[in-house]
């Protein structure tokens, strides 16, 4: 009875969180759609070409539905999005969905790897810095963090290229090898971009980890754990880190937005044929449907990631399960 109720309560919590993201997604859709709606230039004229007559353009306009109201066009577009139809590239005429799908692998690989790098650096660094605030380790960690905030990702990328690809040519300067070509070449090409992006992302996470840990380490229950005779590492990991987890995973979710902007830049610097590169090409060509599709994709990914993170709170704090 009691267990059934708590499962129900848990389910309700999950459901409520999911329901709460719907208006956000809707708003994102409206904003993204307005972008195309407000975009300068007449897609019909572009499609029709330079020699087209006014009637011909008008015909294309109505066939594209461009003469309809905002709401009608939004509903039409939204329906398409729900069916997986993001429109066509103005430049190549190919469906945006397939353009994105082709380029997903390198982007996902870069994102996952750099997040991994970031966490591996940030969490231990933040925990140890908080353990001995004011020590040289702490100062070093926080110096690194403020530097990480301040150095744009292309700057670090170029420095790394200069060092590890040009001066000591141990790694390729740029390019991408898909995973299918073997893990070795894939990783060789991924090390520099993933590291550049990961290190900078680590700054924010390390700083938040330290702050959260400092807060937790001040709590009375830490003293209780010490009074029990627990070793330092058990206190830090077993008692403190779990309590500090919520702000840490929250910042990981927020940092995903920065990661996306980093991905766009990093793919440009390292010439990786991913979605970020696609974005930049689309901007340079004023290919609005592609820009729109990419923004929608990244935003939805961001919202869903943060939903997952929200749902994970219950794993760290039993008080949230109610």
């Amino acid at each position: 009875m009691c267990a059934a109720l708590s499962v129900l309560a848990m389910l309700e919590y999950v459901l409520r969180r999911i329901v709460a993201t719907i208006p956000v997604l809707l708003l994102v859709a409206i904003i993204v759609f307005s972008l195309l709606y407000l975009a300068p230039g007449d897609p019909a004229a572009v499609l029709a070409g330079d020699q087209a007559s006014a009637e011909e353009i008008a015909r294309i306009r109505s066939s594209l539905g461009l003469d309809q109201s905002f709401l009608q066009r939004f509903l039409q577009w939204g329906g398409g999005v729900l069916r997986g139809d993001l429109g066509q590239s103005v430049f190549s005429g190919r469906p945006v969905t397939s353009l994105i799908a082709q380029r997903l692998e390198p982007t996902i690989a870069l994102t996952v790897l750099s997040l991994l790098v970031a966490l591996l650096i940030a969490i231990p660094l933040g925990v140890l810095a908080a353990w001995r605030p004011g020590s040289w380790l702490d100062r070093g960690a926080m110096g690194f963090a403020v530097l990480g905030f301040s150095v744009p990702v292309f700057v670090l990328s170029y420095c790394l290229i200069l060092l590890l690809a040009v001066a000591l040519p141990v790694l390729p300067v740029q390019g991408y090898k898909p995973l299918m070509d073997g893990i070795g070449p894939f990783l060789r090409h991924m090390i520099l971009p993933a590291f550049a992006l990961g290190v900078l992302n680590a700054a924010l996470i390390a700083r938040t980890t330290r702050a959260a840990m400092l807060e937790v380490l001040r709590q009375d229950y830490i003293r209780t754990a010490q009074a029990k005779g627990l070793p330092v590492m058990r206190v830090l990991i077993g008692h403190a880190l779990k309590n500090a987890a919520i702000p840490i995973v929250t910042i990981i979710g927020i940092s995903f937005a920065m990661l996306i902007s980093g991905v766009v830049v990093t793919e440009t610097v390292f010439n990786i044929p991913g979605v970020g590169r696609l974005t930049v090409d689309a901007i340079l060509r004023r290919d609005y449907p592609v820009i729109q599709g990419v923004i929608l994709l990244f935003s939805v990914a961001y919202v869903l990631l943060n939903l997952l993170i929200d749902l994970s709170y219950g794993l760290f704090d039993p008080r949230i399960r109610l």
Partner: protein
Amino acid sequence: MNAGVAQAMRRHRGAAVGAALLAAMALAAIAAPLIAPIDPQLIAPFDRLQDPDARYWFGTDQIGRDVFSRTVYGARVSMMVGCVVALTAIFSGLVLGLLAGFIRWVDGILMRVMDGLMAIPSILLAIALVAISGPSIRSIVIAITIAEVPRVTRLVRGQVIALRGQLFIEAATTAGTSVPVILYRHIVPNLLAPLLVQASYVFAAAVMTEAVLSFIGAGVPPETPSWGNIISEGRTVFQLAPHIVLFPSLVLSVMVLSVNILGDGLRDAFDPRFTGQR
């Protein structure tokens, strides 16, 4: 307030260094025509891709323009974008946050809109907005401001709601003080410190975003010397002439770093845990 800033400078050596560096860069930006030895637009076809020397301190680019002069002029763009965005974002965020914190129905609508805006990664939002309005410094400033406002609004609203629950606000109520006076006398003064800190972070973010946007070609028009543009142009000849990328990068990093250090110093100075208030 001013006492707080002065105190921050005294206690936090980093903050003082940050403030000094920032002031120096601001001066350089203002006095760019006096400092830059060569017209930043001047093309010297015979001096292409020169390494740094006594004449070209930061070398030249692929059409022979002086990278140092361009970098100095680039500071103008960054400073302008940073200042304008910080001011407008903080002011709009303050107004919107106060409204949301005090009027329930406004809160409901406003916060949903902010949630929607915040769900779009700010760089993409800025790209989208610049894509609509065309590349110009004005649209860059508007785009970055729109991307930054939700965060400031959130901060202000959160602080207002926290402050409203404070006992000293209730004490003011029982002392017969009306809501507008409470707002002006008790709430806003307590918001200034966090907002000043936030302003520094918004400034840093704006400078950084402008550089990134210009770097990927969605920013300031290419003829304007901005750091992002210079770096972007140097990209293709990076292996031949790394100085075109490296010098503006260094200056950009130093500027963002000084603002961030300054912001951290202010934050520490205003943090009650550091000032001995409890």
